[in-house]
């Protein structure tokens, strides 16, 4: 130990404090640079919607759910999270393409995580959750509900099916739907 007079102790503590403040500063800088440069923003669109009338009118009526090819080449996926299923259960998107997921809940709180990716959001009744993402590798990704929503919570999951761009074939209305066949 360098010394133990009162002043030496205070100096040692201050030096340590400065080193730690620097370390925390570096960590925060990484987060700031990461979110600015790689646009790593959590979903924060603050968009209100009435959970009682989802089925009746607006964006989340039944015929408008599923994947839609947009004019700019991106794909929008709309679905509802409800006790105890995502509707529709199978969501198909092309690989390596900008994807916007839009979802909301008519009943209680849900959440989703596309397993193996950082596509993640809470789903709170009264708000539309929007996640911008992109899936690099084709394949089936399991998407469970990740927030407790009642006794059937464990059975609530769906599949994100990422297909190679060449196999992505929207219909005349620019829509794509898929089925889960193996279960």
């Amino acid at each position, binding site marked *: *130990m360098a010394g*133990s007079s*009162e002043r030496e*102790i*205070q100096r*040692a*503590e201050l030096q*340590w*404090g400065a080193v*730690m403040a620097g*370390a*925390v500063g570096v*960590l*925060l800088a990484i*987060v700031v640079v*990461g979110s600015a440069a*790689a646009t*790593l*923003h*959590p*979903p*924060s*669109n*603050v*968009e*209100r919607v*009435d*959970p*009682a009338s989802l089925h009746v009118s607006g964006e989340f009526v039944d015929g408008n759910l599923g994947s839609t090819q947009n004019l700019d080449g991106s794909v929008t996926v709309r679905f509802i999270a409800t006790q105890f299923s995502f509707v529709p259960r199978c969501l198909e998107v092309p690989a390596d393409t900008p994807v916007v997921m839009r979802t909301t809940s008519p*009943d*209680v*709180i849900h*959440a989703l*995580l*596309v*397993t*193996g*990716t*950082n596509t*993640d959001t*809470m*789903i*709170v*009744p*009264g*708000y*539309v*959750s*929007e996640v911008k993402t992109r899936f690099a590798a084709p394949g089936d*990704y*399991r998407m*469970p509900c*990740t*927030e*407790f*929503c*009642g*006794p059937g*919570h*464990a059975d609530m999951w769906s599949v994100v099916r990422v297909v190679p761009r060449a196999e992505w074939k929207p219909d005349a209305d620019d829509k794509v739907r898929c089925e889960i066949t193996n279960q």
Partner: protein
Amino acid sequence: MWVAFGVFGLAAILGAWQMWVRSPIPAPFASPDTYYASVTAHGTLMAYVLTTLFAMGFGYYVAVSALDRPLPGLRYAWIAFWMAVVGVAMAAVTVLLGKASVLYTFYPPLTGSAFYYIGLVLVVVASWVWVAIMLIAMRGWKRGNPGKPVPLAMFGTVANAILWGWTTVGVAAELLFQVIPAALGWTDTIDVGLSRTLFSWTLHAIVYFWLLPAYIAFYTMVPQAAGSRLYSDLMGRVSFILFLVYSLPVGMHHLLMDPEHGSGFKFLQSALTGLVTVPTLLTIFTITASLEIAGRLRGGTGLFGWVAKLPWREPMVLATGLSFFMLGFGGFGGIVNMSYGMNAMIHNTAWVTAHFHLIFGGAVVIMYFAIAYAIWPRLTGHEAANLRQVRLQLWLWTIGIVIVTFPWHMLGLQGQPRRVESFDYSDPLIAGWAPWVVVSMIGGFIMLASALLFIWNLATLFRGAPSTQPTRYAMAVHPPRRLPPVLNGFGMWNVVVLVLMLVAYGYPIAQFFIYGSNQALVQRLD
């Protein structure tokens, strides 16, 4: 204390059983209803009851022993204790009957029986009596000792009491104005965005309320147990103040993935969370320096030679070493959680469960054990007959928690969600998780063995030589003689907290009243 550790034992049994249910091995009594009732009971008893009753009991003990004065308002303390016991019984029975399987974080618009919430309110009101008694005790001591520094143990205890007062405001508002009216059937809709925001006010500060008793032990009991002195009393005070100031305006990092808040306030609170690591890092330095003094006094030399010379046979010293080990890994996981960008990868996964079980179950609760072992001789009047069983219990706990949480970290990175009662391991997408779930379950049973041994130790070991020594807290290398008022009281710091909370939570709460919001229908589970 006995009530706290009694519910701890019960909740430990439930915790081990839950890990069994989630594993591929068939468990008895397994069903979604029993699982979620059990998760609710485990969280409620561990996070609310064990911690609050422990903090209250330890606070009363410090007030009497560190200030060397009788406890003011002893009668009210007993009334509060029995109020808490009634509240715990109400809440626990309701949950175990399956009438409130909403998990301990409530999740409105899901709503359980009103008895559950009212039971918890009774516990919180009892703890407010404790807060008042702590403040009155410190004021009384200051009046009798004008100009003298408040003993560090009491300073930390009062910091925690004030922190707890601030912390409970959010959850109390949520329960009293939103959840209980719904549970009683007076209202049939709930503003879920508002309830989540109010709960986040409480949700992070509460973990520092759990943590501070461990830090009070680090600063005031550990150096004494090691035969040393505290390296710096000043840093203890600064750390307690920083905890009070920075643990409150940060709760929205639990809402990073929520749609009801914009990115600005999420970013602000995420960044403020970074600052709350500072008092922990200061503490690690000061306590390590205090232990180094002990190691060198005992003949340790070289850069690390003093570590081997420490009195590891002392439970308090052993627990501190193990606690720092768990705190290191848990803290690393926490920095990922609070990161504005990285959180998306692990939000709602087993990674988060691993983080808080390491920090709270590991680093903090092991210090609760050590504190209990240290003060039990004073309470029972007898020293422990032997310390071997005590050390065994502390080691088992640490080994158990490492085996539980290291697989959880890996599973979390692979996307295993938390709060799920069963998995279909025949699905090839998740079949690879199964072996690790079994490994962590084994850790759960090791922890259960340690928990039961802890209770057994408290009940049977303290029959040795009569204990005659008074409680002694660690002296600083240079005990403070005079302190500026800002380091000897909390008046100014309360103003700082108020300002920070207005900045951090003012608009995020006000927005629900400015713009209105679409309410969700209450859904009853009882």
